């Protein structure tokens, strides 16, 4: 038990991967049910293992907790260094929870190579938790890149008709950004002689170098979040991915980018972050406003949700780069909330797609008449997606908008338009799909959700409403960490010899 207590993070990372390997070894299409149950047990155990990270988290500590440190590659001073703070704990829990959801969502839907499908998601879950908890540059990079491999396979094997194009685009886009990040790590390594993140936090860096470092990290993270104008891989990947792939992409993979801004780009190059803050805010607002318009005209439900994700992630980067505690916490809350809501939305599309094999809005209409229970859930999640007060979607957006009001009125004004546009594209889609007359014979034959689908949607609905009414469990985690973060961000890292004051402070 002490081994477990001292290595909580290692268990959180390696247990799902072990479960994935077990599923691969003992699962097959012939023994489909056994495969599913093994995967389900594996994912549930992996989820339970992450719960102590929350219950034992010390709320008043702003630095890294549950740290584990072991030598890995001494030749380059690379360590197996793990640790979490208030930013990463909720994201880790979100990851392990989403994995359970994905396994359940695939239950009867995936019939081809079930073991490989389940194993890919379990292994991916471990790798993503690794990204959220690595405190060593190379360890982080290995998790970050390795995660591409299972996602590449998931989209490519179980995806839609245009899956090959989408998955190759996804892989190469992400790889391009990541490799520049690797160059930044090599630079930092030759400056400090180590890959330890904490060394990078303390390293004074000249403005010129900071700008380059920030750009290199930006290339990696902006692609992942994704920010306008490097977002184009996301709609393709989302549309072609199977339901589980879309859920993981939207709920977690995008957050890897957001989290990494907080963990790497901003604290390592704080002066450059301030220098670029206006650019970042502008790009965020473009994402919020322009992408919302793009979402409005989509004919494919999944594509619409994909654009909605980009728009919502614009809020996240907006919250980061205003450098206020409210904005920062709002952004993290928005990441968590978007994890639930986008999962739920993609699940809803999945439920419809499994029955009709179409994602086109035009093929639907009046679904509420044949699937009343499902429609109730779907409308709830649509409301949450458009930021209705009382749902978790409102909390993050509201916090960011409040922070923006203090920052600059026009920024706040543009950000607040999302409450209108978001409602417009989500509710218009809801109206066309669910309300009105029964559109065609296929819709008339639809059967309402079964117990499995009901339980998934019900759990998500409880979470969405629960955190909407009482977001304290998340925000409590963030306070000490975000205060610590902002203190760090306000300390210039320029070398002392320089007389140039830090920009924007």
């Amino acid at each position, binding site marked *: 038990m002490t081994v477990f207590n001292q290595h909580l993070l290692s268990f959180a990372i390696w247990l799902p991967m072990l479960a994935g390997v077990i599923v691969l070894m003992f699962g097959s299409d012939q023994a489909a049910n056994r495969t599913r149950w093994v995967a389900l047990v594996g994912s549930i155990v992996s989820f339970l293992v992450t719960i102590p990270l929350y219950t034992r988290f010390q709320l008043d500590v702003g630095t890294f907790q549950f740290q584990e440190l072991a030598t890995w590659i001494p030749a380059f001073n690379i360590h197996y260094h793990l640790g979490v703070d208030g930013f990463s704990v909720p994201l880790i829990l979100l990851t392990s929870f989403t994995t359970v959801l994905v396994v359940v969502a695939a239950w009867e839907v995936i019939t081809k190579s079930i073991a490989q499908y389940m194993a890919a998601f379990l292994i991916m879950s471990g790798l993503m938790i690794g990204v959220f908890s690595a405190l060593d540059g190379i360890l982080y990079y290995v998790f970050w890149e390795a995660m591409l491999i299972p996602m590449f396979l998931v989209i490519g094997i179980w995806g839609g008709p245009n899956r090959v194009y989408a998955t190759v685009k996804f892989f190469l886009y992400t790889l391009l950004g990541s*490799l520049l990040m*690797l*160059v930044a790590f090599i630079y930092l390594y030759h400056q400090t002689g180590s890959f330890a993140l904490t060394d990078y936090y303390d390293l004074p860096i000249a403005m010129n170098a900071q700008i380059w470092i920030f750009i290199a990290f930006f290339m990696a993270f902006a692609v992942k979040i994704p920010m306008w104008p490097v977002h184009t891989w996301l709609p393709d990947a989302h549309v072609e991915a199977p339901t589980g792939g879309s859920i993981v992409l939207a709920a977690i993979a995008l957050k890897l980018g957001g989290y990494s801004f907080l963990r790497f780009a901003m604290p390592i190059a704080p002066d450059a972050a301030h220098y670029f803050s206006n650019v970042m805010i502008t790009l965020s607002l473009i994402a919020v406003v322009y992408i919302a318009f793009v979402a409005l005209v989509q004919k494919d439900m999944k594509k619409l949700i994909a654009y909605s994700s980009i728009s919502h992630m614009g809020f996240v980067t907006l919250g980061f780069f205003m450098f206020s505690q409210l904005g920062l916490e709002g952004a993290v809350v928005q990441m968590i909330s978007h994890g639930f809501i986008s999962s739920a939305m993609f699940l809803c599309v999945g439920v419809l797609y499994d029955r009709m094999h179409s994602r086109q809005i035009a093929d639907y209409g009046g679904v509420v008449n044949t699937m009343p229970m499902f429609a109730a859930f779907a409308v709830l999640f649509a409301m949450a997606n458009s930021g209705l007060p009382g749902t978790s979607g409102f909390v993050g957006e509201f916090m960011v908008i409040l922070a923006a009001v203090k920052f600059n009125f026009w920024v706040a004004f543009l950000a607040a338009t999302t409450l209108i546009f978001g409602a417009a594209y989500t509710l218009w889609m809801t109206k066309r799909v669910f309300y009105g007359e029964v559109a065609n014979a296929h819709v008339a034959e639809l059967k309402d959700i079964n117990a499995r689908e009901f339980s998934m949607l019900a759990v998500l609905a409880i979470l969405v409403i629960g955190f909407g009414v009482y977001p304290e469990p998340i925000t409590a985690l963030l306070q000490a960490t975000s205060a610590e973060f902002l203190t760090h961000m306000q300390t210039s890292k320029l070398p002392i010899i320089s007389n140039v004051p830090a920009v924007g402070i």
Partner: protein
Amino acid sequence: MDILSALPELTVLCMAMLILIVDLFIKPQNRFVIYGLAQFTLFAAAVFTFQSHTPAVSYMFSNMFVDDTLADVLKLMTYLGTSIMLVYTRQYMQLRNMFRGEYYAMVLFSMLGMMIMISGQNMLTIYMGLELLSLCLYSLVAFDRDNPRASEAAMKYFVLGALASGMLLYGMSMIYGMTGSLNITEIANAISDLNPHNPVLIMGLVFVVAGLAFKFGAVPFQMWVPDVYQGSPTSITMLIGSVPKFAAFAITIRLLAQGLYPLAADWQDMLLIMALLSITIGNLSAIAQTNLKRMLAYSTISHIGFLLFGLMSANLNGFASSMFYISAYVLMTLAGFGMILLLSRQGFEADKLEDLKGLNQRSPWAAFMMMITMFTMAGIPPTVGFYAKFTVLQAAWQAGFTWPVVVAVLLAVIGAFYYLRIVKLMYFDEPTDHNAIQAPVDMQFVLSVNCLALLLIGLLPQVLMNICGLSIVTSLQ
């Protein structure tokens, strides 16, 4: 006793000749004895090399032959690589009526050439080893003598190879003319006393670098690589693409890092140009290929470009990292060609890209192994290919090659594309070929270990890094 320190070489020589003789008296159905003898030779040579190892650097045969840690480690890696290759190729040669004693004798003779190159401390020794290796390879390429493609490839290889040997020899003679010695250490000392801008010396350097680049297959001396790779029997392609690179690496270290080190500023520039061109042309040309062997040939060219990144750093860090790179490269090449051999069968060469279609449905394990190999070649963590690229790039960065590193990194993305295409064919497409995979158990086992090693060394690269670092540091001090 000088002669004893060359015991591994002598063992290989005697056994190769013994195999030729035994082959005359043996019935064709008992040829497996020859195979056993060849494997035993490698094992015995490994034991001798391992036993005679000392950390000290010692020179024998009037300073023509060196025994240092670098030589011992590279020789051991060569034995291992050759042994793996023999396991993979046995069935392939049997099915194509090429399972003959000469094959094993030639492989052992070529390996003897590599060993002499690895231990060469004198330009004459190096050249002798190189010629022994090359002549064996030329004839091995034409081993399937009724195949016109193979004959053409052999001819091409021979003509261009002879030209490269000539260039190398010409450069050596110029260096000899200016320094008055053929001994690596004496050359280094003599050059330090000379004007480093001596034109004859620089000309000599240019020819030597050109000769080395040919042996590696670096752009602009890469013309032979795709044709020879495609034309040769796959087993020979595997040999050409894998272990001789250790020997080429060794003579590059001997010639450039030891003998011509005072001219580092000059050869660094040459290597930089070749490195960038190799990565660019290798990766871009590989995209257009439909033949797997040809694609791997272009992939080799781009790998050599990355290897040169380590070498051009011209410091211990760089040499150690390129040694790590070449070890990883040989391991992944063996795996890649091993996969082609695994899928080949009587009258069928699995050397086209579409032959891999739907492999995941035919054999998930084989597809998984090939996928590891492809991601290793692309340099995606957590495979050893990532650390290989990482080590050479950080060495080049440390040596001040900032922009070349960024360019190389961007070109690696292009490289990832054609490796991903293989994964796509195996996993996303439906199979067109439904034949079961027939391969001997030992081959399947060794191939699995080989591919898993790519992953395991990727998770724990420290041991191999230490071995490479130690070899370079103790031998180049």
